[in-house]
């Protein structure tokens, strides 16, 4: 795994916070970007509009992070959840100070009555988004090694469901076979001959949807957990091995 997923982000943040509280000031630098991204998402979802780092609403983030780092202790649960709650409360306070709109009052009331479970899901969704973003960024970098972009995949992905299934199946075969995936990574080409002879994959599909198959293989072999479910083929009868190996 190249970049951390959701749990990995949580673990990393918790460890860095502990180190920071122990006196290691540089520990914060490792996680600061994640915390800012997370803060932006929380504010955006609380305000119901897109928030950029340059926006006025985002100005509270550094202050809240520092405050939370002072007050946080491990018995309060996950640091991200604690930070998220603090940013959300602060955002609502700021909005309350600014204007008193009827719509806003209703919104505040709604947020006040949110149960803890819903709030947890709210913050987890944001953390998921951040982790997914990391994986997408990783995939973009990996694709760049093959001179591919997402724009190319739009034009090069199969439209028909059946063809797409075939392409995804071919990609999964390559990803599961060490020799085939090494061949792809080393030579930058699909192992046409083996796929045709051993796995009876249609040559036309390999040629026409080469870019899509490469992207799918990259998702599998780099274990991009958030994107993998999107490119898994439907298991066929008698092909449970595909499912189990995936």
């Amino acid at each position: 795994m190249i970049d951390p997923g959701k749990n990995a982000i949580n673990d990393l943040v918790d460890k860095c916070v502990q180190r920071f509280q122990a006196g290691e000031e540089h520990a914060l630098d490792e996680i600061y970007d994640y915390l800012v991204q997370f803060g932006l998402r929380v504010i955006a979802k609380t305000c119901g509009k897109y928030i950029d780092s340059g926006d006025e609403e985002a100005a509270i983030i550094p202050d809240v992070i520092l405050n939370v780092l002072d007050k946080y202790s491990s018995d309060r649960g996950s640091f991200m959840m604690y930070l998220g709650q603090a940013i959300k409360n602060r955002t609502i306070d700021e909005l309350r100070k600014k204007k008193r709109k009827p719509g806003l009052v209703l919104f505040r009331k709604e947020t006040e009555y949110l149960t803890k479970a819903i709030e947890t899901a709210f913050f987890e969704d944001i953390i998921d988004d951040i982790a997914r973003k990391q994986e997408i960024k990783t995939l973009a970098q990996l694709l760049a090694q093959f001179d591919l972009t997402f724009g190319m995949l739009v034009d090069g992905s199969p439209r028909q469901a059946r063809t797409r299934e075939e392409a995804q199946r071919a990609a999964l075969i390559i990803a599961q076979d060490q020799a085939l995936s090494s061949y792809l990574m080393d030579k930058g080409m699909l192992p046409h001959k083996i796929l045709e002879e051993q796995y009876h994959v249609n040559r036309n599909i390999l040629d026409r949807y080469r870019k899509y198959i490469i992207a799918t293989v990259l998702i599998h072999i780099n274990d991009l957990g958030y994107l993998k479910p999107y490119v898994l083929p439907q298991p066929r009868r008698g092909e449970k091995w595909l499912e189990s190996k995936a």
Partner: protein
Amino acid sequence: MARIKGVVMEYNDGQAIIMTPQGNFERIKTKKPLEVGEYYYGNSATMQKRYAMIAVLLLALTLGTWDFFAVQAYAQVSSSLELGVNRWNRVVMVRPLDAKGATILRESNLTGQRVEKAVEIIIDKSLNEESLEPHSAPAKFPLSAQPKDKRNVKFKQNIEKEMNKGLQNALKKRNSHADINNGKSPINNRDANPNNEKIKELPKDQPKGLKNNNKSDTVNKRPDKYENNGRDKGNNPSKSNRSAGPQKPGNN
């Protein structure tokens, strides 16, 4: 409404690339700023295009229908019926002006017909009702047209021309029936015009159909050579004469 959903893979100036749950990459347009990694729910570009096309088609259909049923001129046939005519010389509205008109309207469907055909039907019905003798002087059928835009003289002339054609057709039909009833088939009746004399035509700029009874008589009295017996339907007598050129005496 068919919607598309998926993960935002790339976002740039109102355009985004998303990966759908089926693993397909789609390009979408959106006014809402999106963040890479977030879920997107909305209409796909293909669907948006399809909706736009449907909307344009519906609009064209609505406007076309509205325009078709918009009365551009009123045509009056005798004093019994008033016809509302659209820009394509089709009858879109009929209003009876008296009891006779109401009877004709009940018996025939004039809406959607060309003015020419509608006038023909009306006059035919009128003549049937009055049980006129075939060669007797017909009743007067003043025809008039009044466009909504009074400056549109060309349109007015066009309608009046069509109405006159309808009138002539009705009378022609009437005469041919009468001749058959009298034992003269249109074929046998060729002898009626042995020299193939040119038949006088109503002047083109004549605004009202049969105001001039002499002219109508000319039409009524002409031989049935040009009457169709099913073969030369729609033949214009004047045209056939013109195409034939000057007749040689030995032709007949």
